[in-house]
């Protein structure tokens, strides 16, 4: 490993103290003079025509300052995916799910807002609802949107190589079907936004993963110049994909503020978060593969249907990701992918940690274990046979540089004691393996633009004792502020402790697309590294002038400028930076990053492209209670190829957090609806996230290739989402190993285990 001073070390989180002491202010904590409180009235029906809305009684309630409906807001449809703008600020003709936006109120306090909402009279004509994605495309089904016949939101047909020929050539062909469930991100901080529209300028403080996309879509919706919209991210308590797009809180809050001339704070309650959703899609997945005698995959066919809910959200990308990420881990050449993402009268689904990848990965990892069993192969062996090699290209034209999947598999085998345990565990115990891979940032932004993906400015403060990093990158709890300050200090030759940061404010920080697709360490990191290096170059040129030597003879590390040849300290950062300011003006460095042109030319080729990919293997050992179906996880071993590590303890936290979410989706979490499309468990009591007590012992390790990843600054790659991806398949495979039952739908609930065991006993009898 190269020698670093600031990166590669577990520096304390830059905002740790503020968060632990409660000093950190989140959007919902903010208070401004004369601020009003606003809320949205939502639909009680899954599908209904709006016949009339009477807001007169609500408007008369003392303390109410504004009541708005579709008549008061722009008609322009919006959505985070430009391919399908299908959402209005408020429903105009009909409501499309329980929770759809109908009206909003701003009042002096929360109590009055809730009372006013109850006074709004909406007359509905109920319509038959589409709740089943499998029948939504049939003739005669109700239409969710008139513009999208047969409720088809997205249709994908991709074919690379020749899958049919591959199956003909194969020694063994097998088809399996799986179902992935609807889950919700459940960030602990509910969505909040404070909007202020004054003097032609809209300012929004929001719990967001991307001030930039919020700024872009708010400006578009209201016909404002982007410069007249300012979006500021305060502290954020988690997003996981659910806070990537502006919600009714920002749009309705802006209108309420414009009408009243006062700041308006809008927020979702927990059950409203579930209704707004944008979580993981329910997905029906059929996989067919053909392998040779050695288990080498010759071709793979993925045939999927996704329940999109009532709107597109980021679902076009989710649909493409579902197939596109499959070939990353295994080196086959023939790949076919068919997908229908259909509209239903349920909350809209979008991007959730790992985006479209985790459920198809669960399906493929289960499928591959079944193929291995057919061939009499060890599950790790079949993965080693197929594991992708570095410097290869996938059939869907993703260029993979560094790739240590083979090393991940070998390390996981060794750490977990796989060879000793496999086949030798006591009854009720089993061990399973699965792999995964994820992007280190998306190759293309969500809407078409030639803006660089990330930019940064470093300004050394005038007395030279500290430097401030200005970045549009978005810390939502994952620690990007900390990591980027480490990177800036490393690039400048300064210390982490001297760094300050101003981030995620569209007016004071340079552009960045935000926190999604595991992009910031690589993409924002490049911009920060370049900005830091520009500072260092200027600093050394000043030092060279003061010392009357050539700048190339000098370097700076940890605030000390020294002669490279002798290693002798000559000057310090602070005094030279101060002199720089006196003689030459502000010491500022800037940097930006745009990825190279990536991917193929076919339809949808952009989705899944990335400058670099992470790879991971997980092994888990489970213990099953044969009578109750209860699953106890005895241990998890996670091995990651995530490139150079900037902050080891934050990296561990990401792995643990991602695994925690993957575990929740594996065993416990599912959004459940009644037959009217109403959520039955929109709360943290019945939507069961795992608790700290449910967390198993996790042993993690990293592997590195001989050459660092060339596409990342200092060789970094992603980690934040990658560890979510293998978990579901890994658990399913371990359960199979323990009990000989194959659960083909998520979650792998205790009752499903119990039922499968019962059926197995009855069959054996």
């Amino acid at each position: 490993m190269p020698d670093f001073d600031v990166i590669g070390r577990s520096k304390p989180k830059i905002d740790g103290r503020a968060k632990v002491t409660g000093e950190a202010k989140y959007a919902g904590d903010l208070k401004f003079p004369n601020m009003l409180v606003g809320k949205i009235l939502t639909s009680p029906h899954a599908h209904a025509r709006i016949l009339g809305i009477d807001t007169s009684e609500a408007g008369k309630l003392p303390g109410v300052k504004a009541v708005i409906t579709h008549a008061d807001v722009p008609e322009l449809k919006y959505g985070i995916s430009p391919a399908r703008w299908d959402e209005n600020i408020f429903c105009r003709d009909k409501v499309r799910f329980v929770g759809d936006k109908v009206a909003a109120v701003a009042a002096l306090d929360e109590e009055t807002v809730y009372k006013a909402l109850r006074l709004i009279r909406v007359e509905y004509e109920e319509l038959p609802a589409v709740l089943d994605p499998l029948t939504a495309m049939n003739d005669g089904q109700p239409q969710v949107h008139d513009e999208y016949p047969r409720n088809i939101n997205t249709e994908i047909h991709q074919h690379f190589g020749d899958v049919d020929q591959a199956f003909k050539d194969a020694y063994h062909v097998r088809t399996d079907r799986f179902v992935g469930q609807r889950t919700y991100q459940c960030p602990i901080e509910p969505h909040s936004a404070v909007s202020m529209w004054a003097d032609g300028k809209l300012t929004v403080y929001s719990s967001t993963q991307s001030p930039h996309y919020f700024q872009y879509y708010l400006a578009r919706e209201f016909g404002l110049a982007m410069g007249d919209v300012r979006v500021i991210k305060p502290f954020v308590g988690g997003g996981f994909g659910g806070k990537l797009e502006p919600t009714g809180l920002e749009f309705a809050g802006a209108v309420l503020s414009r009408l009243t001339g006062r700041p308006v704070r809008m927020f979702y309650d927990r059950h409203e978060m579930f209704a707004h959703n944008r979580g993981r899609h329910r997905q029906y997945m059929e996989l067919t593969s053909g392998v040779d005698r050695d288990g080498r995959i010759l071709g793979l066919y993925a045939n999927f249907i996704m329940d999109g809910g009532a709107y597109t959200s980021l679902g076009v990308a989710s649909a493409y990701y579902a197939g596109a990420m499959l070939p990353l881990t295994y080196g086959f050449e023939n790949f076919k992918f068919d997908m229908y993402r259909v509209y239903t009268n349920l909350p809209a689904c979008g991007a959730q940690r790992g985006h479209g990848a985790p459920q198809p990965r669960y399906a493929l990892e289960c499928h591959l274990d079944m193929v291995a069993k057919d061939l009499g192969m060890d599950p790790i062996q079949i993965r080693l046979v197929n594991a992708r090699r570095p410097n290869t290209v996938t059939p869907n034209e993703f260029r993979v540089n560094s790739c240590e999947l083979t090393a991940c598999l070998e390390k996981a085998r060794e750490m977990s004691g796989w060879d000793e345990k496999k086949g030798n565990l006591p009854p009720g115990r089993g061990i399973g393996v699965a792999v995964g891979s994820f992007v280190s940032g998306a190759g293309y932004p969500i809407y078409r633009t030639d803006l660089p993906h990330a930019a940064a400015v470093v300004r050394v403060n005038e007395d030279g004792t500290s430097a401030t990093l200005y970045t549009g990158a978005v810390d939502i709890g994952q620690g990007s502020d900390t990591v980027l300050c480490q990177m800036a200090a490393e690039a400048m030759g300064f210390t982490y402790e001297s760094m300050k940061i101003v981030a995620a404010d569209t007016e004071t920080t340079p552009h960045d697309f935000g926190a999604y697709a595991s992009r910031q360490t690589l993409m924002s990191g490049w911009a920060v590294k370049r900005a830091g290096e520009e500072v260092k170059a200027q600093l050394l040129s000043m030092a060279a002038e003061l010392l009357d030597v050539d700048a190339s003879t000098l370097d700076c590390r940890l605030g000390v400028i020294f002669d490279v040849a002798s290693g002798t300290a000559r000057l310090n950062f602070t005094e030279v930076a101060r002199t720089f300011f006196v003689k030459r003006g502000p010491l500022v460095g800037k940097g930006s990053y745009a990825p190279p042109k990536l991917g193929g030319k076919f339809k949808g080729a952009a989705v899944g492209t990335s400058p670099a990919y992470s790879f991971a293997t997980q092994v888990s050992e489970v213990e099953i209670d044969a009578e109750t179906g209860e699953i106890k996880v005895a241990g998890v071993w996670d091995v990651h190829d995530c490139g150079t590590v900037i902050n080891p303890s934050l990296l561990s936290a990401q792995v643990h957090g991602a695994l925690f979410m993957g575990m929740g989706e594996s065993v416990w979490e599912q959004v459940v609806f009644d037959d009217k499309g109403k959520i039955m468990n929109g709360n943290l009591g019945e939507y069961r996230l795992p608790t700290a007590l449910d967390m198993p012992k996790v042993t993690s390790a990293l592997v590195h290739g001989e050459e660092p990843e060339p596409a990342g600054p200092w060789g970094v790659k992603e980690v934040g989402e990658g560890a979510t991806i293998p978990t579901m398949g890994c658990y399913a495979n371990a359960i199979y190993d323990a009990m000989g039952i194959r659960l083909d739908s998520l979650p792998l609930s205790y009752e499903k285990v119990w039922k499968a065991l019962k059926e197995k006993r009855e069959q054996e009898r």
Partner: protein
Amino acid sequence: MYLPDFAYYAPDTKEEAVELLVRSRGTARVIAGGTDLMVKMKQGLLSPEALVSLKNLDGLKEIGTGSGGLFIGSRVTLNELINSPVIQATYPSIAGAAHQMANNQIRHTGTMGGNLVSAVPSADLPPIFIALNARVRVTGPAGEREFPLSDLFLGPGRTSLAPGEILTGVVVPEQKTTGSTYLKFGLRRSGALAVVGVAAAVTMEGPTVKDARIVLGAVAPVPFLAGEAAKTLYGREFTTELAEEAGRVAASECRPISDIRGSAEYRRDLVRVFTRRSLEKAVREGHV
């Protein structure tokens, strides 16, 4: 979600509290920890016109033993139950049941009395208390009275408390029970309601079962004694096979429904499993 409007009283005596309830003609509700009531009010499932808080009635915080047995005041919180040296010394199985409830934050606030009078079918305390023959003490317009806890529950959310009556505590009578326990099956290790809860209390004479009480939670509108299952045990030598047989009888006695936490079929089989396991635990490990 926001609380509806309501009047709020915090009387200093039981008599005042009773009078306030009587005067409200059924429109007021008693509040102690509020961990169940506040949620239901926010959800609009309950909208009492007034709340009568017991927070100033310090007498209801008592835990003590006397001639009548073990007395636990209704305002005792779940964590106080868990940490009480008196309960640890008498029936740690009560503490054990409380420890399986909700999560630490809620156990600090929620009270024993609240857990009983909410009459939630899946509540965790009623089974162990009924298994231990507990009686409830109430005070009301007609004075004090005491009756078996099993008679308190009429249906989900419904109790036999008369208008104006307040639960003041629970009495666990002195008994020669050999062992008791409560086993809960929840869908995660903390903060999960019982899919099935089974309490067992057994009295042994050497290897033979002299008496047994098996109480099932979450598998009927109210927690109930599985009388037939208990009868299969009387006078017989205790073995795992016998416990399994009692479990099968208990499974046939229960009346579970299917809901978001589990199907009726699943619950019925879990009753079998947990009846056997709770009997074995009570017989072999005592009051745990």
